[in-house]
């Protein structure tokens, strides 16, 4: 495999990882956020603090967990705390620098939908729901969003607002007294969007190599604004790609190993 060949997922993950400064405290979701945070920790940000909502604080897994509460997250954590504590003392307590979110839909102000497509009472698609996203969106000092860009996901109007970004923009979030600064960065498979300083509408500020403004606009369900100084990002560095692929390889091995449950021979005697 040549070093300059890479997938859109890889570019997204590496771009997201690069947003994280060393020693930041990150509240991590499963999937691309988890991959990005662990990649950052394994490359330029070795002292990144990862908190998963399962209560694993300062965890350093060797492979990526499938679920938010895999055993390795607990084994490699500095502390494993009850879930109410991670939400109250850490997240609501203002101890989290970066919250990482994805969703099914995003609107131009960074509000997210992960609840339903269609009407709430009679949904076309029932999605998993809020989880901790509304609290992460509210309390993390800043929020990173990572989502593939398409007209179905980048929509003019959300079917349901699960988590608040800049609300209606123009300072509405600040006016409501939200502690965190909101979604400062949206990383897609095409580039990066950031809010306009006044209107808080998301604007395209960077494009991946080989991606075009036309592609970005076509993949957005509202008339996408573009920053004057749009940046064309460099392709991933070989070291980052290698670290990410090794992480995924370790993960594949870990998830494929069969589970065997040791049942004591006298189990029947003792009381089932």
């Amino acid at each position, binding site marked *: 495999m040549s070093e300059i060949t890479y997938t859109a997922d890889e570019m997204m993950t590496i771009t997201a990882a690069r947003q994280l400064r060393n020693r930041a405290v990150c509240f991590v979701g*499963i*999937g691309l956020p988890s991959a990005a945070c662990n990649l950052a920790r394994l490359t330029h940000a070795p002292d990144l603090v990862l908190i998963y*909502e*399962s*209560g*694993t604080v300062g965890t350093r897994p060797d492979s990526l967990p*499938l*679920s*938010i*509460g895999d*055993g390795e*997250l*607990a084994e490699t954590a500095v502390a*494993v705390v*009850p*879930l*109410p504590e991670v*939400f*109250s003392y850490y*997240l*609501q307590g203002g101890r989290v620098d970066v919250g990482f979110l994805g969703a099914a839909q995003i609107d131009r102000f960074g509000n997210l939908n992960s*609840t339903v497509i269609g009407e*709430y*009472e009679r*949904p076309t*698609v*029932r*999605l*998993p*729901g*809020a*989880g*901790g*996203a*509304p*609290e992460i*969106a*509210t*309390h993390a000092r800043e929020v990173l969003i990572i989502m593939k860009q398409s007209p179905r996901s980048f929509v003019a109007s959300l079917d*349901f*607002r699960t*988590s*608040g970004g800049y*609300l209606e923009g123009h300072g509405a*979030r600040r006016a*409501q*007294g939200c*502690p965190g600064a909101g979604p400062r960065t949206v990383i897609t498979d095409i580039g990066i969007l950031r809010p306009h300083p006044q209107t808080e509408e998301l604007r395209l500020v960077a494009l991946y190599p080989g991606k075009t403004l036309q592609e970005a606009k076509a993949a957005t369900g509202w008339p996408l604004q573009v920053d004057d100084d749009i940046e064309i990002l460099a392709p991933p560095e070989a070291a980052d790609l290698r670290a990410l692929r090794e992480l995924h390889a370790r993960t594949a091995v870990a*998830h*494929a190993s*069969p*589970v065997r*449950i*040791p*049942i*004591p021979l006298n189990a*029947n005697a*003792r*009381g*089932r």
Partner: protein
Amino acid sequence: MEPMPLREAIARHVHDGQSVALEGFTHLIPFAAGHEIIRQRRRDLQLLRMTPDVIFDQMIGMGCVRQLTFSWGGNPGVGSLHRLRDAVEHQWPAPLALIEHTHGEMAVAYQAGASGLPCGLMRRGAQTDLAQASAAGVRHVPCPFSGIALTAVPAINPDVTILHAQQVDAAGNVLIRGIVGAAKEAAMAARCVIVTVEEQVERLEADINSIVLPAWIIAAVSIVPGGAYPSYAHGYYPRDNRFYQEWDVIARDRQGFESWMQRHVLEVPDHAGHLQLLGVSA
């Protein structure tokens, strides 16, 4: 307190129509107890669980459930719970009422319930549609000192909370090790607590600050090795991530689901039989 067979614990303490929480966050999910509830054909249950997992997908698909209180309803790391979706989207096999929370709200609701409080407080979040849409009934109230916007969440006090844990000692005290989620709060909030454990030991060789539920909090303990499978019991066996991925296929259509449940749950006498049939017991 002597451990009792799980069949007896469920028969004695879980009744049609009750509110029943099965907690454990990804870890220590009481699958064996859920299966026993399915085998005993309980109906109209009002289930509670922060993260309805495969076990709730199974209970919902088998028609045990009237109402679901939850905060995230997916197959962790895999995708949808198809039986949950089918119930919500197409009322199959029966309509399912949802009491939907955020994680933060549901944690506060369990804490309030455990604390003998009628409600708990959190900071009001950035405005969303959930408070209006959901039947969870949270309310916005100002802080009586500062005027800061708060959200009051009604307490949750399940009729029954069911947990899986690692060990029970001779006196009936139960040790929970590892990721604990809101298990302790769900237990302390409940009117009746049932616990399944991996094994009984003479003494819990536990660290001084371990999470131990005293015997007198608990109504029934059953010894069920592998009782959390396909989730896991820290120190005993890992999560079977592969099974969670396979469940996505099994549960996708109604018939495949029903025949799998018939064969793997209804037609086996107990959890040991279930594990044997799946070929995971060693």
